């Protein structure tokens, strides 16, 4: 039995794997996922995807700046902090577009374009999250799912 909402959310994991394989010619390794009862303290660059419909909440893609810089250099692009943030949004858009193919019409996704258009969680917030660690060339990025409510 595979639950619809969970299946939809899982498509983000598959889409992220697909993105890295296609864009970097290197597989990303998915580590053991974890359910934490606290939003993880995040020191990397984040891009936010808003979910509405079947599930309301967020998918957050975070990566350390060094990892984003490596990705940008491989594409012969500038590596300023603004460039890194822009690139993370592009990555989130590509992953979301890909995921949409599996989502159907019940789950809507929208990449947040402006900082401030998403909640600012801190490590003090007690919000259960699903964290999928992803290792790419010794850098660890995280795909974090934060669901506020779900249609069962």
């Amino acid at each position, binding site marked *: *039995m*595979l*639950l619809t*909402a*969970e*299946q939809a*959310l*899982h498509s983000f994991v598959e889409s992220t794997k697909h993105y890295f394989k296609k864009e970097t010619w290197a597989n990303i390794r998915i580590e*053991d*996922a*974890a*359910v*934490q*009862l*606290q939003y993880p303290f995040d020191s990397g660059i984040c891009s936010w995807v808003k979910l509405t419909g079947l599930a309301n909440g967020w998918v957050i893609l975070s990566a350390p700046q060094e990892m984003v810089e490596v990705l940008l250099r491989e594409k012969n692009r500038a590596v300023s902090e603004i460039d890194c943030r822009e690139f993370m949004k592009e990555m989130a858009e590509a992953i979301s577009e890909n995921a949409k193919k599996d989502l159907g019409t019940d789950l809507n996704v929208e990449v947040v374009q402006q900082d401030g258009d998403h909640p600012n969680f801190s490590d003090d917030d*007690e919000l*259960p*999250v*699903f964290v999928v660690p992803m290792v790419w060339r010794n850098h660890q990025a995280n795909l974090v*799912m934060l*669901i506020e409510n*779900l249609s*069962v």
Partner: protein
Amino acid sequence: MDIRTVLQATAVSQEHLQSLQMKRWQWSAYFALDGVKTIGELASRLGQNDDGAVEMAKMFLETGIAEEAPISMSGFLTTQGSDAKKAVETVNLTAFLTDRTMEDVASEESDQKPESESKPKPEPESEQEPKAAELELPLEEPKEDAPPEPIALSEHTISKMSLNSVIQFILQETGNPIAVYTTFLMVPSDLLKKNEIEHLPMAQEAFEVLIYDAELQEAIKQAVKQKLAKNIPDTVFK
């Protein structure tokens, strides 16, 4: 102090921290203090023995960068394994055998103070004389024709829910780790927090977490039933 001690970092200034000199593994342990892991666990993960754990904890306390973390009974039972389990079952059995509630027993145990504090000292002149009531107590022979009632232990033993088994059950049923997350979204976070559960043991080889709190057990049962349309199996209870 022993290796089961649990510490949490105190609020200290950056200047104070920067003034300290510690070994690399001790800094690693300091930044991993979470008020849940015992100093033994932390030291062990960093390749240190029990003596190293205690030495480290003493230094943390002496320098004021950490303090002993208080722990609730349910948190203790969830994290401390079989010794704690035996302790609870002893209290429970005592309550059953004496026809008192667990709360009565716990209350009486906590009320026990050193004799000098809890009882007035006897008058000097009567100190050497045994009380009459003690002398007159008849010694009853056990009656062979009246065996004691069998004790239905199973009804009075606290059932323990294995959180790991619940998670493995959800994974078996759904094949999707996200279902574990969405199931536990239906369990009140404050109940999990009360039981000092900060993350769910997803891996099969994860350290076993036992839940003694009946309210949390019930919340998990209901969440699983709602999500999977199935009752939680009895095998998750130990």
